[in-house]
């Protein structure tokens, strides 16, 4: 097996076991210290990365233009593919962030019968969307552990998530969608030779980590149940800065909780920072108006170039011979 995959599987497994065992051995460490530390690390790390990026200037205006530029009134301008002002850039960014528009364009090609053919490849877009949105819903749903009383809006979200009445406790779709989409993304990484070839530990690990988080969450809800009342007492104590660690919460919960902490702590130092980076991508967040509005490069160097005078000095005779006007006649 591929070493990157092996490391990731092992890491997730070991981390899960650490959480499982750690919860009963050192509940205060795993229930209080690590979670707070993870949150601090997440935010501090995130901020550090963003500020680190923004510290470097954007010397040139380099949007990738994906449509017709703004020129004449009688030529239809592709406003959101080739924005020429901030408002349209904003729309382009929103479409990118909420609908993964660039990925929607994706196709796959192959050579068949001497032809390059282009086929549908919508699955990455589709499962990518499902993955991110179900993750969002799962995240929002979990706010119920940190709020008391629980806002009505959260209850609505939960009601919609559980709209299909299946079993008891009722199935919440987002969890399964998240797990399913994560497994799809993982399977894709293993099954498509090209994607396997480019995949690193840093690619397998987060998707396995998230799948394990979803998996342990599902296990806790539907199979090996934990005492949710005690869990909420604990999470509320964290949310009100008066941490207590009640007894009798199962190891599975700590495994889940620890993996979540790992995810948060790992987030800023991983490719997951694409969530912040997408806002700073100069090919997407700039307007294509550099012919109309001058863009400033803060480190624009002064460089010596061959001036007309240098040129004329070199070619003066030939120029005169050719009847070209010159500045200095010798």
């Amino acid at each position, binding site marked *: 097996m591929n070493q990157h995959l092996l490391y990731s599987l092992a890491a997730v497994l070991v981390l899960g076991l650490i959480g499982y065992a750690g919860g009963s051995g050192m509940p205060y460490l795993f229930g209080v210290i690590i979670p707070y530390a993870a*949150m601090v690390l*997440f*935010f501090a790390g*995130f*901020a550090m990365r*963003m*500020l680190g*990026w*923004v*510290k470097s200037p*954007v010397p040139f205006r380099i949007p990738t233009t994906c449509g017709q530029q703004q020129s004449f009134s009688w030529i239809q301008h592709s406003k959101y593919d080739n924005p020429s002002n901030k408002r349209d850039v904003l729309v382009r960014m929103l479409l990118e962030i909420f609908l993964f528009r660039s990925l929607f364009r994706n196709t796959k090609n192959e050579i068949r019968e001497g032809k390059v053919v282009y086929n549908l490849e919508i699955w990455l877009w589709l499962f990518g969307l499902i993955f991110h949105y179900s993750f969002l819903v799962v995240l929002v749903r979990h*706010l*119920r*552990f*940190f*709020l*008391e*009383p*629980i*806002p009505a809006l*959260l*209850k609505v979200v*939960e*009601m919609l998530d*559980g709209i299909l009445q299946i*079993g*008891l*406790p*009722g199935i919440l779709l987002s969890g399964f969608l998240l797990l399913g989409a994560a497994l799809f993304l993982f399977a894709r990484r293993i099954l498509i030779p090209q994607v396997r070839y480019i995949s690193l530990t840093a690619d397998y690990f987060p998707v396995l980590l998230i799948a394990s988080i979803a998996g342990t969450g599902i296990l806790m809800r539907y199979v090996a*149940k*934990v*005492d*949710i*009342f005690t*869990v*909420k*007492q604990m999470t*509320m104590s964290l*949310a*009100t*800065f008066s941490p207590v660690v009640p007894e*009798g919460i199962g190891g599975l919960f700590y495994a889940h909780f620890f993996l979540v902490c790992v995810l948060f702590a790992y987030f800023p130092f991983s490719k997951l920072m694409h969530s912040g980076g997408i*806002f*700073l991508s100069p090919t997407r967040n700039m307007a294509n108006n550099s012919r109309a509005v001058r863009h400033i490069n803060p480190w624009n160097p002064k460089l010596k170039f061959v001036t007309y005078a240098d040129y004329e000095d070199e070619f003066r005779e030939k120029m005169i011979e050719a009847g070209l006007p010159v500045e200095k006649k010798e």
Partner: protein
Amino acid sequence: MSDKLKVLAGLLVLAVLITLPFWLNAGKSGAAPEIVIAEAAKKAGNCVESKEWMAANHMALLDQWRDVVVREGKHIYVSESGQEFNMSLSSGENSCLGCHTSTAEFCDSCHDYTGVGTLYCWECHIDPSKENK
């Protein structure tokens, strides 16, 4: 606005989102509700299975019960300790609500607190404590 300011503003929003629970909980105790064990339940001394087990698994047990009662016509559950129970949510003395007389105090307080979904039991099964009001 420079990019740096924009990023700082974004980070501020992120910080607020992350700490949202702290803000929303501010000034509230967030304490867990007291679970009131009704007199009848206290008298009975023990539930169908151990308290902890029931807390975690009652919904699965009820799910199983309803199938066994409706589909197999069996109404008696023999617990691990050998005690027999009437598999019924609300009908009569030996049912769940026979002991736990108040759904508001027993079921709802905990369900509301943990937010584990709305109970649809009472859309069909009669809750005497509410019916009488």
